[in-house]
């Protein structure tokens, strides 16, 4: 065994290596996104994931080994969600003024998210258990997996679909809103958070603090409403 290889074997088992790889991948992705003027296609989450996945694949590192280091970053998702209270408090006057439009958009958006997934699923003859995993795709992973599990679907499939939805939403939201002629940052942010949960919220915060604040509110409210809507909608489908 060469000594370089021995060093590699040692390092690849420590959390330090994979935590550093995660941070480096993100910094590279963020630089790239900045160089492309934060163009929606250059989504830092997507680029960082591609870089990280490529490194894991090239080094044939099992995900469990990787996660042992990356879990320190992953853990911060919870505290960051709690921290959404700060922009919400800072912009409370703006938020309170938009209470009625927000609640209307929440109701319509949440119903469209669940109904369109169910409707398209039935239309394309997707098996019922897959439709179950598809219906809460707009809410955060934890909530979606919980809903799907209680309804007898596959939580792992749900997690994949949630992440796919988040990426799609975060990339598509800016050009779509421009095309629709919607300039209101509150509306744009609220839509991003409702349709694309945390990944959409991360995108919204890149654009403006107000958009991010409204995205955070939408993420929270939609998690709650979807948890009620999905079981109700599925009970109609036998």
């Amino acid at each position, binding site marked *: 065994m060469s000594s370089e290889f021995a060093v590699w074997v040692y390092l690849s088992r420590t959390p330090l290596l994979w935590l550093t790889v*995660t941070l480096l991948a*993100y910094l590279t992705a963020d630089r790239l996104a900045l160089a492309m003027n934060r163009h929606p296609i250059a989504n830092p*989450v997507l680029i*960082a*994931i591609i870089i*990280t*996945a490529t490194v894991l694949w090239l080094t044939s590192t099992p*995900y469990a080994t*990787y*996660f042992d280091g*990356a879990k320190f970053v992953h853990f*911060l*998702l*919870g*505290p*960051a*969600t*709690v*921290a*959404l*209270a*700060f922009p919400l*408090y800072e912009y409370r006057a703006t938020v309170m003024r938009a209470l*009625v*439009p927000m609640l*209307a*958009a929440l109701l*319509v*958006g949440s119903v*469209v998210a669940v109904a*369109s997934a169910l409707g398209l*699923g039935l239309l*394309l003859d*997707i098996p019922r258990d897959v439709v179950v995993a*598809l219906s809460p*795709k*707009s809410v*955060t*992973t*934890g*909530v979606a997996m919980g*809903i799907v599990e209680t309804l007898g679907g596959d939580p792992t499939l749900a*997690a994949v679909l949630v*992440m796919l*939805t988040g990426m*799609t939403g975060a990339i*598509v939201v800016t050009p*779509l*809103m421009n095309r*629709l002629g*919607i300039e*209101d940052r509150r*509306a744009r942010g*609220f839509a991003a958070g409702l349709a694309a949960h*945390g990944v959409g919220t991360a995108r919204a*915060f*890149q654009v403006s603090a107000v958009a991010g604040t409204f995205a*955070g509110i*939408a993420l*929270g409210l939609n998690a709650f409403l979807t948890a009620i809507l999905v079981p109700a909608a599925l009970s109609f489908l036998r």
Partner: protein
Amino acid sequence: MVVALTLILVAQLLGEALAHGLGLPVPGPLIGMALVLLFLILRDRAPGGAERVLPRPLVDGSLEATGKGLLAHLSLLFVPAGAGIVGRLDILAAHGFAIAAIVAISTILTLSATAITFVAVARVLERGKDPR
């Protein structure tokens, strides 16, 4: 920063305890968010000033700075979970790429419906206030 982080973690812990204890369908961190919001409201409304009772970092703006620091790189926090999803894309392929198409169409419909409703209702409300 330690005081601020402690407050955030305590809020999350209480949130998790409430969510699991009462079987609420909302994740613990979201309840934690509501608790911090409540804390901020009470702190600034307290008569005579909360400065005298609370540790300094909770009143001098470092709490807010820590919170914003956590949110500044929200994108980073999705990388570990996202990298795990890449390895499970086979499960998507197994179910046919019709699902990917549904995800795309449904997401576009949801984004549009949400934003259009928001803007339309806001406009109606503003119009109601204008005359006079």
